[in-house]
């Protein structure tokens, strides 16, 4: 694990702590507006200052971690499960099943830019946390499916799998016992990058007004509220803190995913 990945892990740890213990860490009520305390700069009373309606930005950023992680974790679990199963079926059975899944389904899902597909789905389904999670899972599964399929194709013909088959092991047993453990590492890399992607997409959609509706303290919502000229002029900190929160979270998962991938890449071992 390289140094950046370690930094990433530390940030992720802080993020998880913030999300789990938000009610204890937050210093103010996330929804409480106070028009006499608008646009206050960071101080000991308000660590990150206050926004256009006098809400405490620090508390909102802390609670925002809950939304981001909840979306990220749920999306990764759903899309990894679906993707792994579909990828395993395609790779293991081959033939027309594979031609349908890899030749057609993969191409269709990769034909849309992910964000556009999510926007389109939310546009038709309506905004909201659950619909957002559904939309992001629908665009997310393909990544895992491709990784899993590639791994299955690689491992399927190896001797120990052949041996298991000769001994009469069932397909499911072989997939679970022999193929999945071999594919787990690239899947974890994918999941780490998937977390980064999901957090980014949640913030993007909320920013566009298509994700978690305000006044929920989603980082995307906070950024959308902070970007009008009046707020920028008087309170740039309203933009900077939630912005840093999104960027750091995405960066942390990217660092970890990248570090893991580097470790798994056999070519890197040889020349270093």
């Amino acid at each position, binding site marked *: 694990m390289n140094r*950046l990945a370690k930094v990433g892990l530390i940030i992720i740890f802080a993020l998880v702590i913030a999300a789990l213990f938000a009610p204890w860490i937050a210093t103010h009520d996330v929804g409480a507006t106070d028009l006499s305390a608008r646009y206050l700069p960071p101080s000991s009373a308000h660590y990150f200052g206050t926004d256009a309606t006098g809400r405490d930005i620090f508390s909102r950023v802390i609670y925002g971690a809950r939304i981001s992680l909840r979306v990220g974790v749920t999306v990764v679990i759903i899309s990894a499960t679906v993707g792994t199963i579909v990828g395993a079926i395609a790779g293991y059975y081959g033939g027309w099943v594979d031609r349908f899944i890899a*030749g*057609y389904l993969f*191409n*269709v899902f990769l*034909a*849309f*830019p*992910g*964000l*556009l597909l999510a*926007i*389109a*789905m939310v*546009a*038709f*389904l*309506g905004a909201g946390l659950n619909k957002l999670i559904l939309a992001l899972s629908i665009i997310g599964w393909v990544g895992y499916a491709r990784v899993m399929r590639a791994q299955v194709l690689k491992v399927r013909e190896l001797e120990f799998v052949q041996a298991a088959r000769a001994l009469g092991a069932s397909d499911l047993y072989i997939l679970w016992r022999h193929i999945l453990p071999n594919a787990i590492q690239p899947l974890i890399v994918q999941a780490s990058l998937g977390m*980064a992607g999901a957090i*980014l997409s949640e*913030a*993007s959609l909320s*920013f*566009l*007004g*298509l994700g978690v509706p305000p006044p929920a303290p989603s980082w*995307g919502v906070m*950024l*959308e509220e*902070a*970007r009008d*000229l009046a707020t*920028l*002029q008087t309170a*740039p900190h309203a*933009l*900077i803190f939630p*912005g840093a929160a*999104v*960027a*750091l979270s*995405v*960066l942390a998962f*990217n*660092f970890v995913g*990248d570090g893991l991938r580097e470790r798994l890449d056999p070519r890197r071992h040889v020349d270093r």
Partner: protein
Amino acid sequence: MRHLKSLTRRAIILLLVVWTVVSAVTLLIELVPGDPAYAILGDQARPEQIAQFRRTHGLDRPAFFFSLIRNEEGWRLVWHGANNRYVEYWSGLLHGDMGRSFRTDRPVSELILQRYPATIELAIAALLVAIAISVPLGVIAGSRRGTWIDNLLSVIALIGISLPSFVTGPLLIYIFAVRLGLLAPSGRFDWTDIILPSLTLGTALAAFLTRMVRSSVIEELNQDYVRTARAKGLSERAVLYKHVLKNGLIPVVTVLGLQLGVLLAGAIITEKIFNWPGIGLLLVEEGINKRDYRVVQGCVLVISLTYIFANAATDMLYRLLDPRIRSR
């Protein structure tokens, strides 16, 4: 012969994908909870108005060839024939007609054509920004592999990838419009107005491309022809720019094509930040926010088709550039 066969296969997949995308976009409108007529006209609308609206926009006809209807006896399949919205939308599309806006009654194709050039302008400008940043940085990092400058550039690239446009965009507005007062915060009136949006959209891509160029340069530097070029006494500079870059940019071209689509999707956010009157702003402000589903349909369709064809074109270009791939 094999070349032709793989081309045909690709063309078939392309057609299948286009058919699926159009069908999905056409049928997605059926997912809308509630009746679009009420969404547009409001709950106070008179029944005649609703009926009139549904007739004008073809909503009085069935959505597809058949539908599943549930009654006391359970699910029943009802056949509607070819007089349905799906067929109508397709035949309209083939004539360049995407229906009329639910709100303004103007042809959607006209609305999109009006906005499309601004988006393409932004995407191309962003692409140029990205290339201008990433090629020199990638070459520097790749040719000085493992040095501090390489490590620094790699970290900067990762940070650049992680910085969302809705953070960099408002930050740029803050610095250049609010603080320095050099540029307008939004709109598309002056030629300078494209600077901030294209920087916003271009930097994220630049970060990604820098990594691509870097690894491509590293790969090419290990090739035999580089040793030959060095052995015949070429300067390191000539080796890098005359030989390595020429070959090393081939995989980068593919990524560029793929990224053009990402740029178009990313442009939605950038256009919203800078009030840039492109197709993304049309989609969000006129389409989604005003629940004008015909406009949403048209925009989603045009953006996805642009993406699909940009990818197909890149694929062809890639094959032309690199003869090794042709036979695959």
